[in-house]
């Protein structure tokens, strides 16, 4: 057992241990109970609510929630376009970076608005500090949006029968101020101590060992990086993202950033259990997610540590593992681990180049995003697995001889329709996008850098990452073209809002239904048997939808490697 593996176990173990109390805390926050931060934020919130004329205690139906959610997103979209296109003359631009063109601003706005952070600019040259701070704001609020939507689903299963699902603004603001902000502050403190810059000054000048002077970009990095992880956003301050030494200086920051992105998605699962007073149910979902996660992560760690046999055949030492595209200070094992953490969770920040992963590691990264529910993004993860749970409940409910019910609510045609549309949307966006790119080589597959199976994987990865709102890339793809910007942009939007609308609608519809008490004939949804059923549904849907595509990409590449 080497230290690399120990480091991974420590990262997972610490996250897990912290996630349980955090889950309890999150449940308290959404339950409207007192928290230790109330004295600081309540007066502030009152002021803002007064100015904006919002009554945070007004209960909303699921439709009102969705209207509030979508309209606030539209507002941010307009504000974002205005700021990004006028950065050059606005304040906080010490490096004199230019404004973004309309199409670039559009792309940047959408990708940050959907909590994905696909970046087609480089942070050092393409954006001012004001722009960075605006993006940082979006990283906070979009994470808050996802969590608020999850809170609506939580609420729908807490009461027996209700149309009153809490207040959207209340959930949203509390997600930001009570959960995201304090955790980000802790992470930021660690980063500052480890050397991450926090300044509004322009480029710094250093003299390197050769005696040359070098211009080094700095900025409010320590403020930006924490929420990029805590909110599972993934967009870097600098172009090189988590591989950049000022964003991720040491093994310690690597661990802290890893835990930061992992912790809320995990804690949300426990929070669900605590909130609806069915802890065992939370543990069951956690079990399903954890097994799924390790089934993907463990092989990746092993494959990356074993390295590439084709390179070994050339007589090159591969004892350090598959080192192409990896940072030496982080190592093969931690890179392999991160590659799955960042893809199962919708962060998409990277600390190694996924394009250089071993073929089946690349496949696992793809599967992680195709499933998108093994932990998943803050809020969005719970919403995604909710759809799988509904499908699993439907089939297994029938198998025990009752019309299917979940948490005492009957699942009928309307809920099935929505669940199927959402379940369909993901393969549709991924396969449809990739098919169009493959069908029109002049605009689509022209962007790939490796022809053959790997090139196919590059295209597949780009759309998978977009549909899953992940934001990572097989960076060999030259994707900064009109075709790729527009097609991925559409996929991004649909991939974000459909999986929010669907689960909230289903939860809202179920909440209105009559509550049926449990009997001995009722299928218990907090058992390991039902966990297996969920897992089977996820595996079957992902495997059946994507198997042909994976066979042509990473699997074919894997078999040709030998």
């Amino acid at each position, binding site marked *: 057992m080497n230290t690399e593996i120990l480091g991974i176990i420590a990262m997972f173990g610490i996250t897990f241990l912290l996630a349980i109390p955090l889950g309890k805390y999150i449940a308290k926050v959404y339950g409207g109970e007192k928290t230790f931060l109330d004295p600081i934020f309540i007066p502030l919130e009152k002021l803002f609510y007064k100015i904006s004329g919002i009554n945070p205690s007004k209960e909303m139906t699921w439709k009102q929630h969705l209207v509030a959610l979508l309209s606030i997103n539209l507002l941010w979209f307009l504000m974002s376009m205005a700021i990004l296109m006028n950065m050059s003359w606005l304040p906080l631009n010490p490096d004199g970076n230019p404004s973004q063109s309309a199409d670039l601003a559009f792309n940047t706005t959408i990708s940050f608005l959907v909590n994905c952070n696909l970046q087609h600019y480089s942070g050092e040259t393409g954006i001012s500090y004001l722009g960075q701070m605006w993006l940082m704001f979006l990283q906070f609020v979009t994470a808050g949006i996802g969590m608020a939507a999850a809170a609506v689903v939580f609420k729908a299963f807490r009461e027996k029968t209700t149309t009153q699902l809490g207040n959207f603004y209340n959930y949203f603001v509390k997600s930001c101020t009570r959960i995201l902000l304090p955790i980000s502050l802790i992470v930021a403190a660690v980063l500052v101590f480890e050397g991450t810059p926090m300044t509004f000054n322009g480029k710094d000048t250093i003299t390197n060992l050769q005696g040359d002077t070098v211009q080094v970009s700095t900025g409010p990095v320590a403020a930006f990086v924490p929420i990029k992880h805590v909110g599972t956003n993934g967009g870097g301050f600098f172009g090189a993202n988590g591989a950049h030494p000022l964003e991720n200086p040491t093994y310690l920051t690597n661990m802290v950033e890893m835990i930061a992105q992992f912790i809320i998605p995990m804690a949300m699962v426990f929070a669900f259990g605590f909130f609806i007073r069915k802890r065992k149910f939370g543990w069951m979902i956690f079990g399903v997610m954890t097994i799924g996660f390790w089934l993907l992560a463990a092989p990746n760690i092993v494959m990356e540590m074993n390295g590439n046999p084709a390179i070994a055949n050339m007589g090159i030492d591969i004892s350090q593992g598959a080192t192409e595209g990896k940072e030496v200070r982080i190592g093969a094992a931690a890179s392999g681990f991160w590659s799955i953490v960042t893809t199962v969770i919708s962060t998409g920040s990277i600390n190694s180049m996924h394009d250089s992963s071993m073929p089946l590691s690349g496949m696992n990264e793809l599967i992680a995003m195709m499933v998108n529910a093994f932990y998943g993004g803050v809020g969005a993860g719970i919403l995604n697995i909710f759809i799988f749970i509904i*499908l699993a409940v*439907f*089939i*297994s*409910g*029938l*198998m*025990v*001889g*009752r*019309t*299917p019910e979940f948490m*005492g609510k009957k*699942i009928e*045609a309307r*809920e*099935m329709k929505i669940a*199927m549309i959402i*379940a*369909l949307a993901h*393969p*549709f966006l991924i*396969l*449809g996008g*990739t*098919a*169009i790119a*493959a*069908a029109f080589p002049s605009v689509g*597959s022209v962007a790939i850098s490796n022809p053959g*199976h790997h090139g*196919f994987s590059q295209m597949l990865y780009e759309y998978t990452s977009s549909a899953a709102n992940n934001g990572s890339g097989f960076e060999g793809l030259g994707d900064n073209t009109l075709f790729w910007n527009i097609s991925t942009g559409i996929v991004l939007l649909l991939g974000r809002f459909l999986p929010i609308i669907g689960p909230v609608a289903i939860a809202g519809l179920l909440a209105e239904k*009559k*509550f*049926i*008490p449990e*009997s*001995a*004939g*009722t*299928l*218990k949804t907090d058992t390991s*048997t*039902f966990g*297996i*059923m969920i897992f*089977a549904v996820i595996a*079957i*849907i992902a495997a*059946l*939808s994507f*198997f*042909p*595509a994976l*066979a*042509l990409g990473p*699997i*074919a590449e894997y*078999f*040709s490697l030998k």
Partner: protein
Amino acid sequence: MSNNKNTSLFQPELLNEAFKQSFVKLNPKIMFRNPVMFTVWIGTLVMLFVSLWTLFGATGQGSFAYNFIVFVILFLTLLFANFAEAIAEARGKAQADSLRKTREETPAKLENGKTISSAQLKKGDVFICVAGDVIPTDGEIIEGLATIDESAITGESAPVIREAGGDKSSVTGGTKVLSDKIKVVVTTQPGESFLDKMIALVEGASRQKTPNEIALTILLAGFTLVFIIVTVTLKPFADYANTPITIAAFISLFVCLIPTTIGGLLSAIGIAGMDRALRANVITKSGKAVETAGDIDVLLLDKTGTITIGNRKATNFYAANGVDQEQLVKAAVLSSLADETPEGKSIIELAGINPSTIKIENPRYIKFTAETRSSGIEYGSTRIRKGASDAIKNLVEKADNIFPSEIAERVKTISSNGGTPLVVSENEKVLGVVELQDIIKPGIQERFERLRKMGIKTVMVTGDNPLTAKFIAEKAGVDDFIAEAKPEDKMNYIRKEQSEGRLVAMMGDGTNDAPALAQADVGVAMNSGTQAAKEAGNMVDLDNDPTKLIEVVEIGKQLLMTRGTLTTFSIANDVAKYFAIIPALFIASIPALKGLNIMNLHSPESAILSAVIFNAIIIPLLIPLALKGVAYKPIGASALLRRNLFIYGLGGVIVPFVGIKLIDMAVSLFM
């Protein structure tokens, strides 16, 4: 078919009809009702054109023979699916017809003396039946009383009594009057009896999809759409990889992946549920009722006839101190002479005295009333009373006589043992007690235990006092009871359970049961019951068997389980089909993918053919299961899920690997 069970599933005359229907159902308008099979229908049509195209010299699509074989297999897949539905319909119709046949073309004697055919009877007509007549159609007795042989419908040979007024006033067409004369009013329009409605339900014309069937169809349509996406996008993927894929391969892949197994069997499963109900002699008014039966949480059962055998019987005479046993018995018999209740008759029976041998002058019979709660006889200066202990006690104490303590003691003992004590007095002096006992049906405890394991709460409804009710409830093993029940108590109980979200089933026959039958989620009316009761319920039990509810619940559960397990099986099958077809598609241009050919199939063509052949023949192989239903075992929901997941989920993954490999070995002999 070697064994008897299968022979009964596929009777030759039914097969002929089903074969014919399999082709009739190829009509696209009918196919369209089933989205999964409709896509197969389109695929088959495309393959027909492709076969013709290759025949006239198209290249790159494989040989004509290969394409034609694919077309034939797909065509068979359609026929198999249609056949499944047709055979289920044919069985239901045959069963219903055999019930209906008994009442066709029976002469009906009208009030005015004219005789017409039963087919001409309209609602409201009144006909007359005397001993020996077959009752021409369903109706309600408005005058008279008759013993009737209902064996044609129920199979039960013991004759039953039906009389005007009260809850046993309905007669069924096809049954035979054995004695006396009755006047009957026709209650349904020709062609609108429950049986006619049921036949229409089975025949498909008026068959509505049940809510659960609709939801499942959405799920299956969703899966079909996923595979449309998968198959369509595969075309540009394959082009990118420079791998030409034939149309036959595309269509085969698609048809294999979509859930054709459950898609083909879905409507057969639903019809078979109604069939099974009919086989249990229960006419269902909708498919939904059967489905709901599977969800029932609470079962309301009448004590009499369901939990206990018929009525209470006298089991013992206990004389008071200083009273001769014979004196008590004689008094009890005398007081029961005019008592037409089964209890009264059972006293005479127990005493072993023939009532006709008793000669008394000018007897005056005292009828039972709710106020006196006693009945009796008076002759000369003798006043004999028989009744509830407190009623007699009142009577005795009013005359300044003492109610003996040993009798009070005995009354208590009898009550707490679930019996009913009847105290007998002569001239306001207590003679003794008659003990009436309920006899609990043998085997009923096991049935309740089974229901409890299903998660169903049983509630006994009885007119008995709470003490007696409690004793019987405990002895029979029911979970709850309603004692001293009035009709509105049933209704209130149902409402209360429903307000807490539970689904309630009950059985009833009387007009005063009708509101409760309508309120219950599943209301089973006895065929002997009043028309109002039959209209109110959503099922009619031809056997008038109160334990039938238990069977109905199991039929409902079987129906849902069969859908669930076959869906799981169908989808799990896809894993093996992928491993057969995907390597076959790409192996020519990407030899590396031969690593996926884990079944080591002979050639790409044989692999594809084996997969579609397996996909086709699995449908007829599963028809018996679809018709009989998956066996329900009350072992708790989680255990049941584990069991079915293991058999149909894991089995669904493994079976096709074996099946496709075997078919491939057979197919490769010809290639």
